[in-house]
């Protein structure tokens, strides 16, 4: 799970950390990836390559349409549009029962396989997803140091100055939005194939808030922050399990700890544990 969440954290880091846009629909793209892959590979029984390709095509189209609408705004308007998209996707996943099986979810999802080798055990899946997370790390490192990465950072800091140089800042933000949505969907595909069961509750607004909390607590704008945030936030449930709290209390308590951690970070370390960019 740490590897899957690392992919999510690095994807969000591009839009939020580097681009400065607070995205509240990350779990919608994560869910779209998971559901599209599950429907295509399991319900429609398409081969892996086709399932993944069609999933990515759908996600690209949706991300472009949403991006065109959302990047018109900066700040609260962007947040509201992405929040709306998150709720629309959740409503569709929950209520389009003929495709998604609604609250009952989709089960027995096909595991990923390459050349007949099926990644259906932890020992085979872990190297696959870890390698992909590492690949994602290097891709984002390249983006971070590229001209595009510099322009994206400049757009975050002063979009008027960027526009005055003749650069279309909306286009720059759109590209980061689409790239992030691809990797978020890839994380969804890994999640669906690994868990072999998905239901809409894994892709709700709380999950989006959790995913953005990873970045906020770890820190944004560099490549260490997402790693630290992922490890810290994924270890909290394990610690609670170790203490031996009942599941019903542990779930709420975990959320309360996330909330307090966020407030503490905002007041004590506005840049996150190892972040470069201040929030305030």
């Amino acid at each position: 799970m740490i590897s899957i969440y690392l992919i999510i954290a690095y994807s969000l880091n591009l839009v939020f950390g580097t681009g400065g846009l607070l995205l509240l629909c990350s779990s919608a793209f994560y869910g779209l990836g998971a559901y599209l892959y599950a429907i295509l590979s399991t319900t429609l029984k398409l081969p892996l390559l086709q399932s993944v390709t069609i999933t990515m095509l759908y996600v690209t189209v949706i991300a472009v349409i949403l991006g065109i609408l959302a990047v018109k705004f900066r700040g609260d308007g962007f947040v509201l549009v992405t929040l709306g998209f998150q709720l629309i996707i959740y409503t569709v996943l929950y209520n389009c029962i003929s495709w998604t099986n609604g609250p009952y979810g989709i089960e027995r999802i096909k595991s990923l396989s390459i050349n007949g080798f099926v990644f259906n055990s932890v020992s085979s899946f872990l190297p696959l997803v870890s390698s992909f997370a590492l690949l994602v790390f290097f891709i984002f490192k390249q983006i971070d140091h590229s001209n595009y990465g510099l322009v994206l950072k400049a757009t975050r800091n002063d979009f008027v100055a960027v526009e005055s140089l003749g650069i279309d800042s909306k286009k720059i933000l759109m590209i980061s939005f689409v790239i992030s949505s691809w990797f978020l969907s890839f994380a969804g595909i890994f999640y669906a194939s690994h868990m072999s069961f998905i239901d809409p509750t894994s892709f709700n607004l709380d999950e989006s808030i959790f995913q953005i909390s990873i970045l906020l607590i770890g820190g944004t704008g560099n490549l260490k922050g997402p790693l630290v945030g992922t490890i810290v936030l994924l270890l909290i449930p394990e610690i609670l399990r170790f203490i031996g709290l009942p599941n019903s209390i542990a779930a709420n308590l975990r959320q309360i700890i996330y909330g307090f951690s966020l407030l503490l970070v905002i007041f004590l370390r506005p840049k996150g544990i190892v972040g470069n960019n201040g929030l305030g």
Partner: protein
Amino acid sequence: MTLIQIIINGIVSASVSALIAIAFGLLYRTTKIFNISIASVYLTASFITYLLYKNIPILSIIVGILATCLLGVVIEITIYYPLTVRKASPATLLISSIAVNVVLINLLALLFGNETKLLDLFERNSLKIGDLIISYAQLIQITISFCILTTITILMNRNKYFKLIRALGDNPILLKTHGYSVIKIRILVTLISSFLLATASLLKSFDIGFNLNAGTSAFLAGSVAVFLGGVENPNGWVFSSFIISLIQSIVVYNSSNQWNEMVLFITLILVIMLKPQGMFSFTSRIES
């Protein structure tokens, strides 16, 4: 169900949504915080009243409203105001409101559980006029909401303190130079918003009950109405609440309640595509 019944249901629902929209709009315009924590503040009123109403029915309503106002003020003084003084960015303020909301909602879940609760404060009965059915709860909702909406509208235009609230939204530094205390006006606006949220919460909970999701739905309805109506236009917040509620009643009648929030956001997206400054905001040329 006739068309008139659908319209009446829509108007009843809108009257409560308009209270939430004013609560969100006043806070947003004054403090510039996209305040998601109003969801949990809204819920607090119903939960506190629910805790007490069997022993002290009428007093529980007052305690519920007072506790909500107190909570709102405590959050303002301990979190939002100190962050604003430190010149926190809008993103930081938004994230802090998300954090406050996460903590409060989960505290409420731990204390009261997740299931839907009913608030039987008054006798449940309904009025029949021909084919039309209007429940007492709906009558109470519409009467109280319209009284508050009228009072607020009059106060916004005539009262000194409401004008100060407006001035704080326009230019806090100028207000300070005139010798007014920013924190006092912020507390005042928080009190008014918390009162509106508490009233809306109790009215809605008395009619259809409440659960932990009710706060988020209320926040969404309020914030979308403010953005649709135009942030600078309080009348627009109320009008857009009515338009959204009517559209939602028609959709709910033709399909199901499940698509409610989807309708809300599709309306929002369509409107901001066509008119990003809101339905009822009219930008004029500076020289006119």
